[in-house]
C-alpha cells in the first residue's frame, strides 16, 4: 500500500449525515401510490429478496416503466415477489444482476428456439408452473439446514461457530433453525449476536407483520411472535451485545458457542476479534457468504486452521425463470443489461422488443404512445354536438372545458359557472358593465348577432373548412337552392381553377381554386344561399 491509497481513507459520511439523509426519505408501504410533480405516479411492490425490498413502477402520462430488481419468488421470511402486480407495464428495466455473482445459475438450453407454435399453450402452462413452484424456497431451507448441521457438529466436537452473513432475513431464519436443532440435539450452547444494530433489528423484525411472508403472518393471527427470537431472548438462549467490549459479555461468555457477527469482508467489528481467537482451531467453523475474493478476505487471518463454509443464498431471479416471467408480465419493451448470458435467452416469438443497456450509456426507449390517456367528464360528453365527416368514418365536435390535473391524470371537465352566491364584488361590477354594453350594441345594431361573434373571437374559434371543392357538387347544391350557375374552367400556372357565374336571381361569381373559394355578390340573400351551398359541399368545424 502506498501513500496514494491513504488519501481514500477519509471519512465518507458521519452518523449525523446518515440521520439527516434518512429524514429526507419519504417512506412508502407496498402498493402505496405517491405522485411526484403531479405527473409521475410511483408505486413499490415486494421483490421478495429482503424485508422491505421493492420493485418500482413509475407511471407517466404516456408510458409506465417497471424497475425490476433482484427478486425472489418465494421466501421464508420476507413477503414473496409480487410479480402479478407488475403486469401491464410498458417497459421493464431488468436490473437483476444477481446471476453475475452466482455460479449456481446455468444458462438454459437454447433448443427451445425450435419449438413450434402449437407448443405455446403448453409452454404458457409450464411457465405458470415454473413461476409458482416452491422448489426454490425448499432449496433455501435445505441450505439453512445444512449450515445448521455443520454448526451443530462443530459445537458437538467442542468447537465454536462464527457466522458472518449479511442477509438479515436469512440470518433470522438461521437463528431460529439453529436453536431448534440445538434443542433437539439436547445441547445447551449459547448463541451470541454481536452487532451494534442487532437489538434494534430483532425488535423491529417482530413488529412488521405486513412486510413478512405468509407463514409469518399466520403467526400474527395466532398471537405468536413473528420470529422466535423474542422467546429465545426471554429464555436467555440468545444474548445480544453491541460489541466484544460490551459490559456483561464477559459474564455471559461461554465456549463452545455460536456467534453471529456480520461484516461483508471480515475487516471491521467483533468478527475480526473472534477470527483471530479461533483461526488456529480446526474444530471451529466459519460460515460466510459466497464472495468474489474469499482468499483476500481471509488473508489477514492466515494460516487458517478453522473450517470455512461458504454458502450462497438465492439472491435474484433464476435465469431459467426470466423468460417465463416476461411471458407472464407481457411488457412491450424489455431492457436487459448488456451481458452475454442474458443474450443467450431464446426469444423466438418476438413478444416484446428487447433492448440492451450498458454502463454510462443512455438508451433511448421508443415512444409507445403519442397521446396522453385522459378523461372527459360525462357532463361535457353529453353536450357535444358531433358532426359526421364527408368520408363517413369519423365524427368531430368542438369541446370546451377546464383541464384538471389530479394524480397524474388529466380530466377535461365543465367550466365552473360563476357562483351567484359567492360572487366577488368586483366581478359583479364587471358583469353589470358587460350587460350594459350588450344592451347598447343591440340598440344600435338591431338584430346583429354581436354576442356570438364576440365570444367566438375571444376563444379564437375560427371556423375552418377543409376538403377539396368539387365544382359539379357545388352546382348541384346551388340548384337545390334554386340557383343556376355556369361553370367556367381554366388552367392556371398554379393548377386548376374555375369560376361559377350566376346571373339569376342576381349576379354572383364563385371563384374556386384548390385551397379556397371566394364568393362575390352584392346580393345579401343570394350570398347567404351560396355560402350555405359551399359549406354543405365541404367539411367544416
Amino acid at each position, binding site marked *: 500500500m502506498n501513500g496514494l491509497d491513504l488519501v481514500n481513507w477519509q471519512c465518507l459520511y458521519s452518523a449525523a449525515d446518515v440521520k439527516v439523509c434518512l429524514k429526507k426519505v419519504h417512506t412508502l408501504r407496498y402498493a402505496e401510490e*405517491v405522485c411526484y410533480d403531479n405527473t409521475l405516479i410511483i408505486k413499490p411492490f415486494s421483490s421478495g429478496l429482503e424485508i422491505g425490498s421493492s420493485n418500482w413502477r413509475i407511471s407517466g402520462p404516456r408510458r409506465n416503466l417497471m424497475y425490476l430488481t433482484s427478486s425472489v419468488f418465494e421466501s421464508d421470511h420476507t413477503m414473496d415477489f409480487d410479480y402479478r402486480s407488475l403486469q401491464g407495464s410498458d417497459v421493464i428495466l431488468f436490473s437483476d444482476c444477481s446471476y453475475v455473482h452466482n455460479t449456481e445459475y446455468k444458462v438454459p438450453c437454447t433448443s427451445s428456439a425450435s419449438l413450434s407454435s402449437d407448443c405455446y399453450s403448453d409452454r404458457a402452462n409450464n411457465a405458470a408452473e415454473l413461476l409458482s413452484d416452491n422448489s426454490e424456497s425448499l432449496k433455501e431451507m435445505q441450505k439453512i439446514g445444512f449450515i445448521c448441521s455443520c454448526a451443530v457438529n462443530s459445537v458437538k466436537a467442542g468447537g465454536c461457530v462464527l457466522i458472518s452473513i449479511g442477509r438479515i432475513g436469512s440470518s433470522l431464519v438461521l437463528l431460529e433453525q439453529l436453536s431448534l436443532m440445538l434443542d433437539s440435539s439436547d445441547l445447551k450452547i449459547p448463541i451470541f449476536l454481536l452487532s451494534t444494530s442487532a437489538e434494534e433489528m430483532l425488535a423491529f423484525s417482530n413488529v412488521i*407483520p405486513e412486510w413478512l411472508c405468509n407463514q409469518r403472518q399466520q403467526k400474527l*393471527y395466532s398471537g405468536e411472535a413473528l420470529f422466535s427470537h423474542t422467546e429465545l431472548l426471554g429464555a436467555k438462549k440468545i444474548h445480544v451485545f453491541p460489541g466484544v467490549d460490551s459490559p456483561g459479555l464477559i459474564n455471559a461468555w461461554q465456549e463452545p458457542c455460536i456467534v453471529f457477527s456480520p461484516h461483508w469482508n471480515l475487516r471491521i467489528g467483533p468478527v475480526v476479534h473472534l477470527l483471530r481467537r479461533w483461526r488456529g482451531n480446526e474444530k471451529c467453523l466459519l460460515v460466510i457468504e459466497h464472495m468474489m475474493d474469499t482468499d483476500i478476505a481471509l488473508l489477514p487471518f492466515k494460516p487458517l486452521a478453522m473450517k470455512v463454509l461458504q454458502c450462497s443464498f438465492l439472491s435474484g431471479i433464476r435465469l431459467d425463470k426470466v423468460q417465463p416471467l416476461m411471458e407472464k408480465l407481457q411488457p412491450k419493451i424489455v431492457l436487459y443489461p448488456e451481458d452475454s448470458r442474458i443474450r443467450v435467452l431464446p426469444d423466438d416469438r418476438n413478444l416484446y422488443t428487447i433492448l440492451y443497456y450498458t454502463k454510462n450509456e443512455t438508451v433511448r426507449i421508443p415512444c409507445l404512445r403519442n*397521446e396522453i390517456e385522459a378523461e372527459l367528464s360525462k357532463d361535457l360528453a353529453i353536450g357535444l354536438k358531433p358532426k359526421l*365527416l364527408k368520408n363517413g368514418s369519423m365524427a368531430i365536435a368542438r369541446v370546451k372545458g377546464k383541464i384538471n390535473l389530479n394524480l397524474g391524470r388529466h380530466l377535461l371537465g365543465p367550466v365552473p359557472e360563476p357562483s351567484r352566491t359567492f360572487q366577488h364584488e368586483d366581478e359583479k361590477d364587471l358583469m353589470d358593465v358587460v350587460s350594459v354594453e350588450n344592451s347598447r350594441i343591440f340598440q344600435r345594431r338591431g338584430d346583429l348577432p354581436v354576442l356570438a361573434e364576440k365570444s367566438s373571437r375571444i376563444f379564437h374559434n375560427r371556423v375552418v373548412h377543409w*376538403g377539396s371543392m368539387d365544382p359539379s357538387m357545388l352546382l348541384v347544391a346551388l340548384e337545390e337552392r334554386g340557383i343556376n350557375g355556369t361553370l367556367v374552367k381554366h388552367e392556371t400556372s398554379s393548377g386548376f381553377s374555375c369560376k361559377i357565374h350566376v346571373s339569376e336571381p342576381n349576379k354572383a361569381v364563385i371563384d374556386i381554386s384548390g385551397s379556397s373559394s371566394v364568393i362575390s355578390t352584392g346580393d345579401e340573400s343570394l350570398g347567404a344561399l351560396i355560402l350555405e351551398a359551399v359549406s354543405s359541399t365541404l367539411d367544416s368545424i
Partner: protein
Amino acid sequence: MTIECLVLGAGQEVGKSCVVVTTGGKRIMFDCGMHMGYQDRRRYPNFSLIPGSNDFDTAITCIIITHFHLDHIGALPYFTEVLGYQGPIYMTYPTKALAPLMLEDYRKVMVDRRGEKEQFTAQQIQGCMKKVTAVDLKQTVQVDKDLEIRAYYAGHVIGAAMFYAKVGSCTVVYTGDYNMTPDRHLGAAQIDRLYVDLLITESTYANSVRESKLARERDFLTAVHKCVAGGGKVLIPIFALGRAQELCMLLDDFWERMNLKIPIYFSAGLTIQANMYYKILIGWTSQKVKDAYVTRNAFDFKNVCDFDRSQMTAPGPCVLFATPGMLSGGFSLEVFKQWAPSEMNLICLPGYCVYGTVGNKLMSKPKQIILDDKTHIDVRCQIHQLAFTAHTDSKGIMDLIKHVSPRQVVLVHGERPNMEILRERIKSELTIECHIPANHETVSVPSTQIVKVDMTKAFIKHNTSMMRRRVLDDIIEGNKTLTGLPSKVAEGIIVMEKGKRAKIVHQEELLPFLNTKEHEVHCSYCFPVYVGIQSGEVSMAKKSEGLSIERDSKGSSMQKDLDALSAERNLKAFMVEKDSRSLLERDLEALPAERNLASSSGTEVAIEIDQMSEKSEALFAERCLASLDRHPLLHLLFLKLKEWIGEVENIQELYGCIQLNSMCIHVCGNEDCPYRTEPAKEYDRALFFCCSWSWVDEKLARRVVSFMKDLDLSCD
C-alpha cells in the same frame, strides 16, 4: 350513473353497522356488524334486502370491514359461514388478527349467559377469518379490473381504517368509526383530499364538542384513586381490545408515578394475550409509542396481572378490567352484581353503551337495576362515566368532510336528533348535500362520470397554464400537492372514430391529423361609394387637405422613409393583434416576392416576419405606401364606420385597409377587379372599395356594405 347506498344497519342508530354501496355494476358491503342491544333476529342486518340475495357471491363484489368492534364485524361469521358468502373480504392486518378474539369472546358470552343456541361456532369464526385478505394502510388493492380500494388510518382502535373505493370514476369513502384527535396509544385519523362523490361517515357525537383530553384523563384517575384509596373496588367493564389497552397504559403510568401497589387485574380472556397482539402491532399505534418500542414496548404493563375468579369476593381494594363492555352479560355483569351494592365501589363506564344493555341503564344513575323477574340489583356504588371516547366529535366530523370534499354526505352510526342538527350544519356551512337514511332505506347519489379519451400533447400544452415546481419538496409533500393546479378554459376538437378511443386535438392539429388542408371560404365584394368628386381628382383633394403625401410614389425620399418607418411600427403593433393574422397573410400574399413568407400558419407568422430580409421589408414598405396613397378617404370612412359601430367593436385602421373582425376594406383601383359586379363607368363620382371577409362575418359584413353604399364621402 348513480351510487346507490343501502343502509342495512346503523341508520339513525348505533349498532350493526352495514352499508351496501352499489355502483358501476359493483356492490360493496361496508362493515357487517351486529347490534348488542337485541337478542332476536334484529341483532343482524337484514341481508335479504340486498338485491340478488339468493346468491350473495354474485350479488356482492367484496366486503370491507373497518375495525374489529362487534358493531362492525359481529355478523361476519354468520354471513360467511351460515349464509355462505364466499367472496373476498378485506380488512387491515390488526383487524384480521384481533377480530377473532372479539368474536370468540362474544360467542362465549352468548353461550354462557343464557345457554343460548350459538349463532356460530369457534370453528366457524376460524373458517370466516381464513377468507379474509389483510391489507396495509394506503396499499392500493385492485379487487378486480374495475374496483380499487385503499385503507386510511382512522385512529379509534388499533387497525381501524377508513376505506376509499373507486369503481370506474365513481368514488366513495366509508369512514367506519374514527377519531380526529390522537389518544394515549393511537394517532389521529389521516386521509387524503379525495374529492369523492360520496362520503359515508359515522356521527356518534354529531352534536357535541369535547373538552380537553387531559382534563378527562385527570377526572378518571382522580375517581379511581379516590375509590381505591378508600379501600373500594373499581370495575371497568370493557371489551378486550382497544379502550382496555389505552386505559391500562394510563393507569400503569399513574401507578408508577404514584408508586401504588394496589393490584390492577385483567379478567381472563381479556388480556395478557391481547396485549401480545398489541406488541406485534405496535407499528399501528401513535408515533410516540412506536418510537419507544426498541427499549420498552408500551404494552408490557408492569402493574397488571391476571384475575382469578376467587378474588371477586376477596376483601381489599383493586382495579378490575372485565369483559364484556357495556355490562351486556358474561363476567363483567357477574362482577357487577357482586360489587354494585357497596357504596365504597366504583363502576367506570368507558365509552358508549348501546341501548338495551345494563351499561346504558346505568348512565341515568338508577337506584336499582332489574335484570329479570328474579334478579333485582341495588346500585349503591359510584358510577363514573368516562367522557372520553375514541370517536370524533362534531368539529372533527366537519373537519373531515371539509378535508375530503365530497359531493354528498351520508351520516350513519349516530342518534337521529343530533344527526339532524349536524346535517343542517353540513348543508348550510359547507353547502354539501347530506342524508341521514334510516335502516333499510336507500340513498341514490349521482356520480361524476368520465369517458376515457386521448389528448394530444399540443392540446394539453396550449390549454394548461401551470407552473411546474421541480423541487424535491414535492416528493415529500406527495399527496398534499395532488389537487389540480389552476387551469384556464381549454378548447379543442374531439375526433371520434368507430372502434377507436376518442381523441381531443388542438384546433391547429386537426387538419394535419385528418391529413387534409384548409379550404378557405371568403366573400369579396367590390362596389362604389359616392365621394362627390371625380376619381381622378382624388389626389388633388388630398393635396388641398394639406396632406403632404405625394401622389407619385417616387416622391420625396425622406417622406418615403418616414412612412416606411411608421409602416414598420404599425406592422409591429399589428403582429401583436392575433385576430388580424389572416389579413396580414393575405396582404403579404399579394406581394409575389413574399409569397413564401406568407404560407405559414398560426403564431409562427410573427416569427417569420421578424426574419424578413431587408429587401422584402423595403418591398413591403413600398406596398404600404402605395396604399397609404389613398389614405384620406379611407380614413374618413374609418371615422364614419367607427362612429356608426361604436367603441365596443374591434375596428382598426391599418395601412391601406380598415379591419373589422375578419372583414377588410381596401380602396380598389383595379378596373378589372373580379369582385365588381357592376361596371365602373356608371359611377364617375364614386370610389370603389374592395371588401372581403371570411364567411363567419357574413352578416356583419353585409350590414357594413349596406351602410357604406348609403354613405357620402364627399369632402365638405
